[in-house]
């Protein structure tokens, strides 16, 4: 089979205060021979913020991002659900509305780019599924059956991908802990402007997971990873709990562990909630 090759959309969180998501993804990709091309011209998708100010400008900035991937002839892989949603919605608007596409291309022409719609937007989960969980399992050397893990999807996961983390955890013999709040928002988009509200939302999720006897959490989004891990202490406090201290695995960190990669190489030593495995 031809090696998988994608344009990696790192996103601001992975470049800022969730670097382990990028580090672990690149390390796992090197073991699985998945090629991630670094497109240096990519900018932040603006998440929802650019759209809040000016929808057309948000589409234009992200059409530029997608056009750079098209130039390389590659599909885009995102490390966060927020970037996935922003780029996917931008693409959907352009693909469905030829007038909008023409207008956007008139502007892109000024910087010698063109949006055609060829590149697809793909989540990291989809990449591992496409590679084949059975193939990853064949390469794995570490059993993770000691983990009672709660997959958390958040609000932006497409319905057809709402069980992929369960499939991953199941594949590596971890016990899956079902959380009723697996699609509840963790408030990552409002953390800066209303931390009290964001920590209450995150706190509710953490409480539900801990009360269901999970000993770890699995996420596939750098924003969710940041909120559930780095804001754990204040989130627990926000919901009146002082007993929450649960490791959070980003998807690539979890897969990396099964592949026998050293925890430090996956950035697990940088997690705020201590990981001892």
């Amino acid at each position, binding site marked *: 089979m031809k090696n998988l090759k994608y344009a990696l959309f*790192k996103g*601001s*969180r992975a*470049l*800022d*205060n*969730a*670097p*382990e998501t990028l580090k672990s993804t690149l390390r796992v990709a090197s073991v699985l021979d998945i090629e991630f091309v670094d497109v*240096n*011209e*990519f*900018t*932040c998708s*603006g*998440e*929802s*913020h*650019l*759209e*809040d*100010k*000016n*929808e*057309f*400008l948000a589409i*234009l*900035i992200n059409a*530029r991002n997608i056009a750079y991937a098209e130039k390389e002839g590659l599909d885009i892989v995102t490390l966060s659900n927020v970037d996935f949603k922003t780029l996917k919605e931008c693409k959907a608007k352009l693909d469905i509305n030829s007038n909008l596409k023409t207008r956007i291309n008139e*502007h*892109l022409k*000024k*910087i010698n*780019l063109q949006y055609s719609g060829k590149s697809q937007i793909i989540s990291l989960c989809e990449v591992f599924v496409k590679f084949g969980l059975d193939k990853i399992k064949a390469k794995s050397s570490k059993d993770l059956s000691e983990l009672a893990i709660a997959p958390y999807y958040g*609000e932006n996961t497409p319905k057809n991908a709402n069980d992929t983390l369960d499939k991953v955890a199941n594949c590596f013999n971890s016990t899956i802990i079902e959380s*009723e*709040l697996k699609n*509840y*928002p963790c*408030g990552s*988009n*409002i953390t*800066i*402007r*209303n*931390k*009290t*509200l964001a920590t*209450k*939302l995150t706190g*509710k999720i953490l409480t539900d997971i801990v009360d269901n006897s999970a000993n770890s959490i699995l996420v596939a989004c750098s924003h969710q990873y940041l909120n559930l891990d*780095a*804001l754990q*202490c*204040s989130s627990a406090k926000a919901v009146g709990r002082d007993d929450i201290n649960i490791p959070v695995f980003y998807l690539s960190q979890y897969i990396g562990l099964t592949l026998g990669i050293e925890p430090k190489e996956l950035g697990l*030593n*940088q*997690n*705020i909630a201590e990981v001892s495995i």
Partner: protein
Amino acid sequence: MGLKEVVFKVFRFDSEKDILPCYKTYTLKPKGNESLDTALEQIQEIDETLLFDKDSVIKVNKEVVLSSEAKVKDFGLEICIEPADSKRVKRDLITEYDDFFERFNSIKPTLCSEIKEITEKDEITNFNELAQAYFSCPSVDVNPEFIGPVGLSRAYDLYNQESDYFKKLKRLKVVNENNRGIWDCAGCNSCDRAVKSEISPSVKIQKLKNETFEYDDVNNCSYGIKETKEVEKQIIANGHVSSFCTILKVKGFKVLEDAKEFCLLAKNKRFTNSKGIEKSQNLKEIKTLIKSARS
């Protein structure tokens, strides 16, 4: 083949007698296409003490639904039925709507005069749809100050009906207040699943945000406005956005409230500043695009 049994776990509470709620279990054999209302009537035949309102908003397996429309067959063989809001329950599955009306009435139809507040369900068109949207909202659940998707949708409709510049501006000032307005929506779109109208609540909230930037002086203290402007500025300057720089810009000296988290992030080498974050290439293109789009 025999009919499959469905186990219903039903929330029970009497605000006049009970301190804590409990769940009672009932088993039924639904015939096929029954609504939740029909199932609850059948449960009532088994246990006449159960109280519920027909055609009302309830939670089924944590999903907010309308009891007359939701079908038993769509929720599996174990169904947990709870009131729309267990914090405001009067009796069993009947919820008090005071909070709904309070937030709804916080958006006044006219900005200058006193008017009678709405307190009855039948005074509002599409009440059930709006109640579903309201109780679906996680921000409403955890933030008592938040106007909520129904009030904010109302604000958008009223904003659109105004033609006077200053009245429009006044409307925007209200919805831009910190901790209660448009910037405190968690963006999960849960409200949209309930509302069938042409423009969904989340789109109306988005449009109010867009309108905010059409005016120069809506609210200089709004964290949401500051954050949006800062994100755009950093994308133009660096291509990527540093959380620390954004928080500093948005919260000023109040950033000290987050000192503990920043220390932890720094200790674990998970922290960069604007100089540290990777810069995108060809950033001049972003300026060209913005200039081009504005022209």
